[in-house]
């Protein structure tokens, strides 16, 4: 079932005008921000499909930048997000693409910290304020943000799934859903793990210290 909570139906509390083009977009930006971990120096946003056609009227650009700044759907600061971004020296660029996306409400966000941390995220706004991240650094994923989610970038080697789950088990964290993606055998890979309990920074650090793990990030339930 796509919708699991009554609060998917009555809610979210949001700044208007559109649950798909404003609130859903804000959440895509917010998850990207949480995944990136820190405030980015540069945010490059590309809209596809219906987002590309209607973003000005729906404030989709304002909302997604608001999310990237860390604002939730109901945060009044969303309406001022573009000037807040400018004041905090965050470089924002908004683009539209003619490419036909799989979903009419698609946005790609590329975040950069101006040094060597980059993140590319692709998200869709599915309606009623819900969204799904469909791509992280060119790995196909399905992240709804409904649950705490752990992301482990690693090299594709045997034993890694066991090693990561061992750390989680030791901290009594239950795995609800897990998916793996790799670029090719033995190459870069990404584990996406939805957990029942939040994963702390300390646990992330522990996982990051495992062999063949390159980067770890966790996002809270949005």
């Amino acid at each position, binding site marked *: *079932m*796509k*919708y*699991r*909570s*009554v*609060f*998917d*139906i*009555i*809610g*979210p*509390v*949001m*700044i*208007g*005008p*559109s*649950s*798909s*083009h*404003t*609130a859903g977009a804000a959440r895509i930006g917010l998850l990207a921000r949480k995944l990136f971990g820190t405030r980015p120096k540069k945010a490059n946003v590309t809209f596809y499909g*219906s987002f590309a*056609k*209607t973003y*000005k*009227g*729906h*404030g989709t650009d304002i909302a997604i930048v608001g999310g990237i700044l860390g604002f939730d759907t*109901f945060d*009044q600061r969303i*309406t001022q997000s573009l000037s807040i971004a400018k004041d905090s020296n965050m470089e924002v660029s908004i683009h539209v693409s003619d490419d036909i996306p799989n979903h*009419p*409400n698609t946005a790609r966000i590329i975040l950069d910290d101006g040094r060597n941390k980059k993140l590319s995220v692709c998200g869709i706004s599915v*309606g*009623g*304020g819900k969204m799904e991240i469909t791509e992280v650094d060119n790995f196909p994923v399905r992240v709804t943000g409904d649950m705490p989610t752990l992301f482990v970038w690693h090299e594709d080697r045997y034993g890694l799934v066991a090693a990561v789950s061992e750390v989680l088990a030791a901290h009594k964290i239950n795995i609800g859903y897990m998916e793996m993606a790799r670029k090719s055998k033995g190459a870069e890979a990404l584990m996406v793990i939805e957990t029942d309990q939040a994963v702390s920074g300390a646990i992330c650090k522990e996982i990051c210290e495992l062999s063949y793990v390159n980067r770890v990030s966790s996002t809270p339930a949005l």
Partner: protein
Amino acid sequence: MAFRTIAELVELSAKENKPISQIMIDVESEVSGKSRQEIIKMMTRNLDIMEEAVRRGIAEPARSRSGLTGGDAVLLQTYLKEREPLSGRLLLDAVSKSVATNEVNAKMGTICATPTAGACGIVPGTLFAVAPKLNASHDQMVNYLFTAGAIGFVIANNAFISGAAGGCQAEVGSATAMAAAAIVEMAGGSAEQSSQAVAIALKNMLGLVCDPVAGLVEVPCVKRNAMGAANAMVAADMALAGIKSAIPTDEVIDAMYRIGCAMPNTLKETALGGLAATPTGRELERRIFGE
């Protein structure tokens, strides 16, 4: 405990001898692991936001950024003060509060999506008209939202709730059906009667297209929220009078789904057809986005 269809929801309600709102709270508690109190508290926050949006909308004649909407709720409230409305005081009050909420949405104000922002006026609009009329308690008002939520939950999982996916019949249609069921429960009707209200309300929205002028959530959205509220009130009365839909509720929802699938993209929130494509619609688009 779980329900996937309206029929299952009504069955559960009979089996547990609880109204739809309480079934929804029970299921939510089971799925989320949160306590009933916590869940009720969360819904109360939504109620507060809705109340504030209604209050703001009926007080503020200011127009939206585009200039397309704003001020109609004020007009209606003034009309209600000055004369006896032909369509009935309660009905028009519900309409005015639905319009108020949707106008606030258009102004990038704070609202609660029910289930979407485009249709956010209907559930609170009807609630804040019917509740005082029925002398409803605060608890009953919170329950209203759970009843509405339960209906929307079924529609969302079996059909669609957004104009982009299924046309306005899915967006305003869902909200209208949700409100109709909630009115019935608040008025003391049974779960079965709520179900009939859903069927009666929704079957009257079938085929309604999503054709927003300039692609904004304003024209005709605000006026569709108005009629959605009116529809919900009448559907509720019909159900409470004992009228039954010839087509079972879940089949009406399925019909909405199939019609939505058959609808061309030009009529599903692309601003390529319907009112959006009228000469005035296009002129307004040019004026707002400047070409």
